[in-house]
């Protein structure tokens, strides 16, 4: 019993952490690129980036299944390396990354666009490269938005169900994350096990919200929130 409780917890932890790291960098890179990009395609690209947020998760999951399935373009690509993505642990990460990307992208972009262009320009006239401007000026100034987005990403990754079920399935000890395990436990009448998992999710969610609230309250007073180089 303890083993079957710990397995979904362990899988979810791995998935959530890996997803958050990947989404963090992907979302920030896309946000930074779009904040400076101007072309007639801008709103189209923006729409594609945000699409997973408005589509039903099962639709996104089905799309991923087509992409990564045996005959899908990416599925064929991975089959060259004798790897199958569908119904494996990496599939839980892929589903969660796709579903959380819009959150990270939107908040980070809003944060970057709020940064006074004059402040970034001041850094440029002082001899800073674009890379240095981004990491020493833009990021620290957009930091509150980025942190909030990261917490949202974490929470959303933990709760991801629909797309994960479609592409990763429910393989106990392999792909069954907490939300998927809860669903199948209830289906099978194991309400007690489901309840323990629900309790775990509640604790994790509550703690992360509390940490965010504490940090938000503390933040305005500790201005040097990102240590300068």
């Amino acid at each position: 019993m303890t083993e079957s409780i710990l397995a979904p917890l362990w899988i979810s932890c791995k998935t959530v952490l890996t997803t958050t790291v990947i989404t963090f960098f992907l979302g920030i890179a896309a946000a930074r690129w779009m904040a400076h990009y101007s072309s007639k395609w801008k709103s189209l690209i923006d729409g594609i980036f945000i699409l997973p947020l408005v589509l039903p998760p099962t639709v996104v999951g089905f799309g991923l299944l087509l992409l990564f399935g045996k005959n899908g373009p990416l599925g064929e690509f991975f089959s060259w390396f004798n790897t199958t993505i569908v119904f494996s642990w990496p599939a839980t990460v892929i589903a969660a990354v796709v579903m959380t990307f819009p959150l990270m992208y939107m908040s980070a972009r809003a944060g970057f666009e709020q940064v006074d262009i004059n402040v970034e320009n001041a850094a440029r006239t002082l001899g800073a490269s674009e890379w240095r401007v981004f990491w020493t000026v833009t990021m620290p100034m957009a930091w509150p938005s980025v942190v909030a987005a990261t917490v949202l990403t974490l929470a959303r990754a933990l709760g991801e169900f629909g797309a994960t079920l479609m592409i990763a399935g429910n393989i106990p000890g392999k792909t069954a994350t907490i939300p998927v395990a809860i669903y199948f436990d209830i289906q099978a009448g194991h309400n007690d096990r489901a309840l323990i998992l629900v309790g775990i999710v509640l604790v994790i969610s509550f703690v992360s919200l509390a940490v965010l609230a504490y940090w938000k309250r503390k933040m305005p007073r500790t201005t040097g929130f990102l240590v300068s180089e």
Partner: protein
Amino acid sequence: MLEVRIKKSLPGFNLDVNFSINQEILAILGPSGSGKTMTLQCIAGLIQPDKGYIKLNDKVLLDSAKGIKLKPRVRRVGFVFQNYALFPHLTVEDNIAYGINHLPKDEVKTRVSELMAKTHIAGLGSRFPRQLSAGQQQRVSLARALAPEPELLLLDEPFSALDSQVKERLELELMNLQNYYKGNILFVTHDLTEGYKIASKIAVYESGRVVQCDYKNKVIGSPANRTVARLTGVRNIMQGTIESIKGSTARVMVPELGGKLKITKDDVANFTVNQIVTIGIRPEYIHIVDHPGENTFLCKADRIVEGVSLINCFFYASNKNTERHWIEVSLHKAHAPLITEGHECYVYLPPEHIVIIKD
């Protein structure tokens, strides 16, 4: 040495400017929206002009014909932004050190404290920008721009957000800047007195063009056109016809005043008899006298506005001419004769203080 020739078209606005300075302070004067800030941004490389050539000392920063376009970070141009644009998350010290922290640590430290002393912000090093007054933020911004020893310093309306006392102190400090910064300085302003105090040259902007760029006394003494005259505080502008020219003295018939006006200016030789010209005089140069005479006209006070130290009187010339405008006279309270509205008196326009403009 700074040479600037730039062109940029935007919907509804064209910037087309051309000027050069040689290790001096140039004030760019003009109304808002005349392209002053855009000029600074082009020089710093923050925006790209469509066409142009910018050379700073021996370095070509931009040459659109040859495809040269240096990045802002290698131009060595210091920029003090209108809103100061300090890094809000860095302390004053780290703000100033931002442009020089490739240098050894102790060198950075000495340079930062030196600059903080020069800009009168010593002791504020560990504060964050939002803990500073506007005047202190402005000083930090200046120190930060000076730290990497730029070859050119650009100041965008440096005093616009300050109250008048702080502004006056900072103006004085900026004048002292030349004691420790030997480079070109370009500063944008819409305030003539500010520009005149600090700069040696003034470039007058009007809708994206430089209408006059010269030494400040030349710009004040012989404005190139009505716009320059108006922008530089020549409030009384009238039309007239030249009747005679002898040496440096011209006599101009001014219908609005109902009489002839004597003008003594070295540049009257550039004009011809019967030419229609615009003449102007600053309100502070006009006197009230108690007897008729040359360049003296009987006028009726129409409106009197009392300021703290000056009294501004708006007169109408007492004649039958219907096309008349107010003649504005600024008098020092201490020696102003008692004038009330409706009062008639003699107004004297000194011939050496009248400017004469071609158009």
